[in-house]
């Protein structure tokens, strides 16, 4: 029974990790921002928010390309 529980935990972690990794960068950022909004209303989570969530949001924002000049629509036919 204990072995089954361990496998279930590992399996759940693997499924969540795979879904996270396969998620488009923009969706990942949206999810992080939503999580940040939720955590902001809970003072107990403020340390985790500063230490872990904020840097993650900054990295996710930098990883996306939507804000950069490469999306200058002048280069595309209208």
């Amino acid at each position, binding site marked *: 029974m204990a072995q089954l529980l361990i496998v279930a935990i*590992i399996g759940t972690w693997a499924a969540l990790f*795979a879904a996270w990794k396969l998620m488009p960068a923009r969706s990942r950022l949206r999810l992080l921002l939503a999580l940040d909004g939720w955590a902001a209303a809970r003072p107990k989570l403020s340390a985790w928010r500063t230490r872990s969530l904020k840097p993650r949001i900054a990295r996710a924002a930098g990883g996306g*390309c939507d804000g950069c000049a*490469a999306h200058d629509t002048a280069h595309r036919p209208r």
Partner: protein
Amino acid sequence: MDALVETRSLRVALVGVPNCGKTALFNRLTGSRQKVANYPGVTVERREGERIGDDGRVLRVLDLPGTYSLHPTTLDEAITRDVLLGRLAGVPAPELVVCVVDAVHLPIGLRLALEVKRLGLPMVLALNRMDVARRRGVGIRVEQLAAALGVPVVPTVAVRRGGADALIGILDPARWPQGAPVAAVGAQIGAAEAERLQHDMRALLAASGYSPPRDNPWFARIDALLLQPFAGLLALLAILFVMFQAVFSWAQAPMDWIEAGMAALGDLVATHMPPGPVADLLVQGVIGGAGTVLVFLPQIVILFFFILALEDSGYLPRAAYLLDRLMGFVGLSGRAFIPLLSSHACAIPGIMATRTIPNWRDRLTTIMIAPLMTCSARLPVYLLLIGALIPAHKVGPFNLQGLVMFILYAIGILSGVLVSFVVKQFGGARQYSPLMLELPDYQWPNAANLLLGLWERVKIFLSRVGGIILALMIVLWILSTWPAPPEGATGPAIQYSLAGRLGAMLEHVFAPLGFNWQISIALVPGLAAREVAVGALGTVYAMSAAGDDLAAQLQPVIAGSWSLATGLSLMAWYIFAPQCLSTLAVVKRETNSWRYPLIMAGYLFALAYLAAFITFRVASAWG
């Protein structure tokens, strides 16, 4: 505290023409692990790093895409201009610009330096590759150049340890003011302004006593061969051919070691752990799944060794020049060569590298055919199938397996050419966009750059094996294990599991292609990333064998249970199938529309099904 940090940091941007050694200097300053290449246009993405001085002061160094001018013709160049002008959202304007100039080709770099200086930002000129310049007899009086330009000028040798110490010394945050006004830069450079720049540049050259480098007679002789349209193409084909032969000939021994290591690890775990689901998960799911992909590491390392060595030697821009006319016939620009070559590593950087193509139609065509180039994720699949189904015979002096690999790569390229030709027929008149490339000097590949580049590739591969592939293998193992077979069941347990049932359903769809239920199951997690299918096959077959140690012996199992027609059909499927969600996501991002990724997925699936169907039928008919 924030104010203290702010006064102790300095935002520095590195700007320079492509191939001036800017990225190598960035690595030297920050210790960042970034690929260094010497063909124009490699620095497509924004790269940022930090250097913390002995006094705690922080340099935030931004490596900007290479540009010849601040009047951009490509998206890359537009990014550089926008960062310098502080126009890019989320990226504040730099407080100091280090303009990196290749001392061997000083005039080209000085022209850009003059443009940057007119922005009004504090600036330092780094005269890079001074060692090569001295060897080739280039004369530059550094003090006079600094006086004439009105900014500090520092000689550097970015690829040598200590070669940037003088520059590091001058980048003292206390020495430079925080923030500075910038001038407006128009979208187009006027004739008068261009003339003025040229005049100023010549005056600077005269003031610095510049004498150009001596020509190297060997370079001219090599170029006479490699740039000749017919002989050059033959040379290119020969280089690619040798590369694929080496992938198979050199990798066998290390692959055997890894295979033996994985088998021993599986045995060790099975022996020392109490039997149960956790031990099964480790042996069948983790070692049997991810371990099957790990075996291909030596072949991937050898392939990238060749690609990086060709980059570093200065050959790749010549290949682009050579192919420009040929690519023009099928509606592509010569600029598409580097993105398409990058796509052989991974379609994602290849698609992002299309930002260097100024014409939208050319860019879109290149994006649409990039997934047809054989990316490294397909390698494990091809290597598995070739190793299992193609005998290691010699055909004359050649290895048959290497020959088949070469043909698979060639089919991918030819398919891209055909698709591009079709797009050209239906896409209307193409605007002519001339290819302008700076051909760098030939050089022996730098061992440190080569090792760094290989290490990067190994890290990427291992992180995928240890990350997404491992996670999906665990999920697949669970789906392949539950529910357990009913009382009195006689078939392999996996047939009664969720994955087995899914495979049985999909088998109806893929049966016309000769795919069995094991392949059909493996294609599902393989949708996430192509190489995952190999690990999935490892897991599925390990499960099918009900506990036998098949983890490290997938090739003999495939050789024994699949027909040649099925194997060839699966190879044909993988040439075309768009089984990479990340690629489709990047296409959406780059085109800012769902239309193009949907068109791409649709046409690639249709081609994959058709090619696999025809291959299976023809191969079956021939027995």
